[in-house]
């Protein structure tokens, strides 16, 4: 029995409609792409969809009450909300430097969450 899954390619604004045909765990064919990037994207998206997560964390003593942060790498898509929930429990203290790790190995992904700007003391 073959099955078909549908994805929208995010490689460029053409937004090709991709079809991944599978039999069991095996990908038999990728269709609908206009270039090679679509093929790569579809295979990754089908097996292990990943996203970068950006949010903010509470910070004391800085000119702003929130510090923007991001995962250093893309993490599995289904963990996005959990990682954000954990980040929302943190309370940081200024100063923080761009690139400082604010959460190590988020939810066992092996990926750190880092500050995406410096915030000095008020």
């Amino acid at each position, binding site marked *: 029995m073959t099955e078909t899954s549908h994805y929208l390619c*995010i490689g460029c604004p*053409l937004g090709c409609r991709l079809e991944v045909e599978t039999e069991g765990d095996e990908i038999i064919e990728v269709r609908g792409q206009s270039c090679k990037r679509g093929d790569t994207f579809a295979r990754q998206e089908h097996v292990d969809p990943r996203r970068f997560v950006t*949010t903010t964390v509470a910070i004391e003593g800085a000119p702003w009450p929130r510090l923007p942060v991001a995962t250093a790498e893309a993490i599995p898509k289904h963990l996005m909300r959990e990682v954000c929930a954990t980040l929302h429990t943190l309370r940081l203290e200024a100063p923080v430097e761009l690139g400082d790790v604010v959460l190590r190995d988020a939810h066992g992904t092996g990926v750190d969450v880092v500050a995406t700007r410096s915030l000095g003391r008020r």
Partner: protein
Amino acid sequence: MPDLQPWQLERRYDVVVVGGGPAGLAAAVGAREQGAERVLIVDRESEPGGILQQCIHHGFGLHHFKEELTGPAYAQRYLERVLEHDVDIVTDAYVLDVDPTRRVSLLSGRHGRTEVDAGAVVLAMGARERTREAIRIPGTRPAGVMTAGFAQKLVNMAGYLPGRRVAILGSGDIGLIMARRLMLEGAEVVGVFELMPHANGLTRNVVQCLHDFDIPLHLSTTVVRIHGHDRVDKVSVAPVDEALRPRMAEAWEVPCDTLLVSIGLIPDNELARALGVRLDPVTTGPVVTSTMETSRDGVFACGNTVHIHDLVDWVSQESQLAGGGAGAFASGRRSSADNVRLVPGRNVRSCVPHTITTDREHTVFLRVTKSLAPCSLRLGEVYERPLRYVVPGEMVTLKVRPRFLQGFHGGNLHVDVVPREEAAA
């Protein structure tokens, strides 16, 4: 961040830059590199960086820094470059007026009302968001209706959630990005309503911001009424016909406490208008030469105040050029006058800059009026290049090299984008 504020402003600067967003920052660097000794950036916010400080998502700097950064990281990297160039920055300072002698009046907490004279001025005020008033949605005037960019500032900088159940009008990138932000912050986004039959934002934002969170996108649909007394309690939405008129018989109600409006940006051209700079009726920003000079001598402009950009990297590039022009002007150097006027032709909405020369390389930015794939870009009769696709949401960048224009001796040059079959014929 270090205290950047100079204690004392000079009476005269070689170049004064109005606005400290990515455009203003790059212009200041460009000005220093082209010989301006004293350069001042004025920004009304409490820190430089402009809109970038609130754009905490990725997608900045792929061209310029060769890595994908968030908005704040791009701003910080760029600011470091500016500081290496020894530029004065005054924040919390509003530029009230620039007059034809290039006297700049500003108002600030630290310096009061001050005037500084400038050898050259760069206008880099960015853009404003179009508001509900711009499209006249009927109904009451309750709290809870705001632009998506304002909500972005509330959430990302002030740490304040504007609502719990949010509807979004317009599928521009800011609206899409805010849909995801609000979901990750624990609010519920009940739907995005788009007047046109296609999403306005990038596909990657439709996928990563809406599909990932199961947020419905209603195309060919618009908000026809806002309800609520003190606070929004629902909106009425309706599908539209081909002429974009709502089909009221099919309207339905969507309970929500907040409506975000994401219907595009328009250049902030108030200072330019007051100064009597010639404006392009299509972009609504100033008409500019190949060095980004406006119709007023020694007044340059760049970034979103000229035309709305979707990539900050191009803002930086264009603005460094504008700053370079200003620096050269202030040092008494002028480049050769432009001899080619670019005229938007078939399927082309706008071209910036408006004029170029045949003897140097120029980067020209185009907006098209509709999607075409595959297609061809033509410069008059002298040059043609195949393109895989064009879409209205994405600016087309074209490097025009002198050899493309061989045999063209100046005057009007029509810029067309035509379907490939037609080009071949």
